[in-house]
């Protein structure tokens, strides 16, 4: 009786994860939207690249939902009369690229340093924390200017600046959790088994801290996209004719009372992307926690699972 039904392999295959996601309509919608965004990022320039540049003064500030200038203008046009739809599609590439790398770098760097800072009881931890304090109190605009003047403008430097300014939040959050987790018994048990620091940090502590980092990272996507646009204006980072959604929102800002759509669509795109990332991150958070996983596995109803054994 103590055998359970023919359970599948411990490591659920990719296919199965997809099947699980497809049970949750919200998560499914998020995945589909993100795939769409990624598709835009990959194929966008090739699909609509020639529509984004040339001013079309006749269509300037054209309101959305009109087909008088062709279907590409359904979302309206910006001040120079360029199709907003085309710009959204093409802008996905730079936006996603920059935001992804910036968030990724800050999560990785912040997470690593936070693990060390929380785990080490010596001077290293203290130094990392005071370093984080310094970064936190260093004005990000000044940092951007310094990078601009000393390293010059480039996308790499832009990502660098964005990542550095976001590092403290990951670092401090990681450390806070590590401070508590390292006192748990299973850490002692792992020490007793002879596990070295790396193993304890990455196999035992990190998996417990990671979900929180991912949660913050998912929201940070929006922050980073918007911060990026303000730095582009300094001359750091991507320059027109390249653009991102953030830059589109920023330029549309002056038109909120007269042509709301210029800032609205890219803002909506940022919002939906952030939202999707968050839905997925919270889905994953549940999935990654064995004590919560049933919420996903049994998501539909009891009918959805294999019939009970007598």
């Amino acid at each position, binding site marked *: *009786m*103590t*055998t*359970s*039904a*023919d*359970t*599948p*392999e*411990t490591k*659920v295959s990719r296919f199965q994860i997809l099947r699980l996601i497809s049970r949750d309509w919200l998560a499914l919608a998020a995945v589909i939207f993100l795939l769409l965004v990624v598709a835009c990022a990959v194929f966008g320039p090739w699909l609509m690249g020639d529509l984004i540049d040339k001013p079309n003064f006749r269509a300037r500030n054209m309101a959305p939902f009109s087909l008088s200038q062709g279907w590409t203008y359904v979302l309206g046009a910006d001040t120079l009369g360029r199709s907003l739809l085309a710009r959204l599609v093409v802008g996905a590439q730079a936006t996603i690229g920059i935001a992804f790398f910036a968030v990724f770098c800050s999560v990785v760097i912040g997470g690593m340093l936070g693990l060390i800072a929380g785990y080490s009881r010596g001077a290293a931890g203290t130094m990392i924390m005071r370093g984080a304090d310094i970064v936190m109190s260093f004005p990000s605009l000044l940092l951007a200017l310094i990078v601009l003047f000393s390293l010059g403008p480039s996308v790499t430097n832009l990502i660098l600046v964005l990542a550095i300014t976001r590092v403290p939040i990951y670092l401090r959050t990681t450390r806070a959790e590590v401070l508590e987790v390292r*006192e*748990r*018994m*299973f850490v*002692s*048990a*792992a*020490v*007793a*088994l*002879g*596990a*070295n620091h790396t*193993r304890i940090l990455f*196999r*035992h502590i990190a*998996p*417990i801290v990671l979900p929180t980092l991912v949660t913050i990272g998912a929201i940070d996507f929006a922050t980073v996209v918007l911060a990026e646009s303000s730095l582009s204006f300094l001359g750091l980072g991507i320059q027109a004719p390249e653009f991102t959604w953030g830059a589109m929102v920023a330029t549309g800002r002056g038109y909120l009372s007269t042509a709301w759509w210029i800032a609205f669509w890219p803002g909506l795109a940022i919002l939906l992307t952030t939202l999707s990332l968050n839905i997925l991150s919270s889905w994953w958070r549940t999935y*990654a*926690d*064995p*004590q919560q996983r*049933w919420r996903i*596995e*049994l998501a539909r109803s*009891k009918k959805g*699972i*294999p019939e*009970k*054994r007598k």
Partner: protein
Amino acid sequence: MTGPHLLEVKDLTVDFLSLGGAFRATSGVSFHVDAGETLVILGESGSGKSVSASAVMGLIDTPPGDICAGTVAYRGRDLSSLSEGERRDLNGRRIAMIFQDPLSHLNPVYTIGWQLEEVFTVHGVASGAEARQRAVEILGRVGIPEPEKRIDQYPHQFSGGQRQRIMIGMAIALRPEILIADEPTTALDVSVQAQILELLKKLQAEDGLAIIMITHDLEVAANMADRVIVMKSGRIVEEGEARAVFENPAHSYTRTLINALPHADDRAPPRPARPAGKPILEVKNIDKFYTLSSGIFAKPARLHAVKNLSFDVAAGETIGIVGESGSGKSTVARVLLGLNEASGGEALFHGRDVLKMDRKQLLAFRRKVQMVFQDPYSSMNPRMTVFDIVSEPWRIHKDILEKTRWRDRVTELLGLVGLNPEHAKRYPHQFSGGQRQRIAIARALACDPELVVCDEAVSALDVSVQVQVIDLLAELRDRLGLAYIFITHDLPIVRHFADRIIVMKSGEIVEHATTEEIFRNPQHAYTRQLINAAPKPKWQTAADAA
């Protein structure tokens, strides 16, 4: 008996659902209990005892749990028909529960005083200074020394047995009508255990408390039980008056249980001492202070948990450490493993001081010395499967086993401790208390160690499994020359298993001699008290009294 039973469980069937299918934890379990009566549930580890208890308290999360059938009725009222508020009012005030795993069932961030007081405040019985006063009283009743001082400490500052007593205190605080006690004395030494059992009996006599006691300890069972049910594989296999069941077991499993009882053969000679080999571990003058500060504002006080402790362990030898709950046994174990810093002294392993080893030496040391923690649940990473947990030593010490053989070896180890291969895919929270303890043992053995420190390693196992595990350990000792430091409160086990015994009290060794000598000729008063405190069957005491 007229009218409905005080508590009646009928046909309880509980499943645990998962993607892979449903697992039936109990099936068709029925029992009842009346005021002033003690029902003891015996049974195999993993047979659904705790699940049944949780179901009575309404603590099974559905899903993933699924109560497929059955009712629980309190004074004839179906509990499932109650509103949440009514249910809450019953819990704690009318029906209370002592959890099997007291160590993780206390909230780590609140003082135990706060947690005790809460029982009074949420039921509006007392509050403020009065609640505190009563909390202190309770602590005193369950035998925590210096309750006023310790009430403001946090759970992690208490020993296993002390935490268990705090749980007990919490359960009896409001003098409930029904007490469900799930292995309430696993972490208690015999004398404290006797004290607690006395306390329960007193409550029973005074208030007509009904007790449902889950235990694997047959002596305790016999001592407490009016009626007994025996469970196996989710079903009740035997049921009856205590004396009848003990003296005349009907079901084969019950018979195995009672026969396996080492206690049954009281006159069997203790394990004879054997010529000790070269000591592999020499402990010299170990001292340990804990810094107590119940908050950052208080001035730190110190607690002298281990005082000037010395002993040694030879290859193939088993040292039993018995002693009062809170006497520093677990602390010694943690210090020897290098998990806590010692405040003084040295521990030489093959001539090298464990407390001063560098990283490489420590790694080699930890390859050879393993520990089974008193609290197996929290000693396992909740995000790892059992396979990962058991195979972790091999990931750390790459030389032990090549990767291709891990799966087989895990299956084998699980089999040795009486678990089955399917369990490798599950996570720790999906196991019963005894099963977790066995996983911890399997992990310790995975390393092929020289010395294993077992901190109450078999306390949650039913006698049949306990025998199986002890035999396994003994076989390894004899075949491979393993040495054990065996911390336990269970005297019959050490009597049967240990070569030498150390008796501890208040952080000190009060007696240290071969097993034979200790049992034949105990020197210290405390030792004598321990040996004589073994509980006697209820029907005997009743007969004695008459």
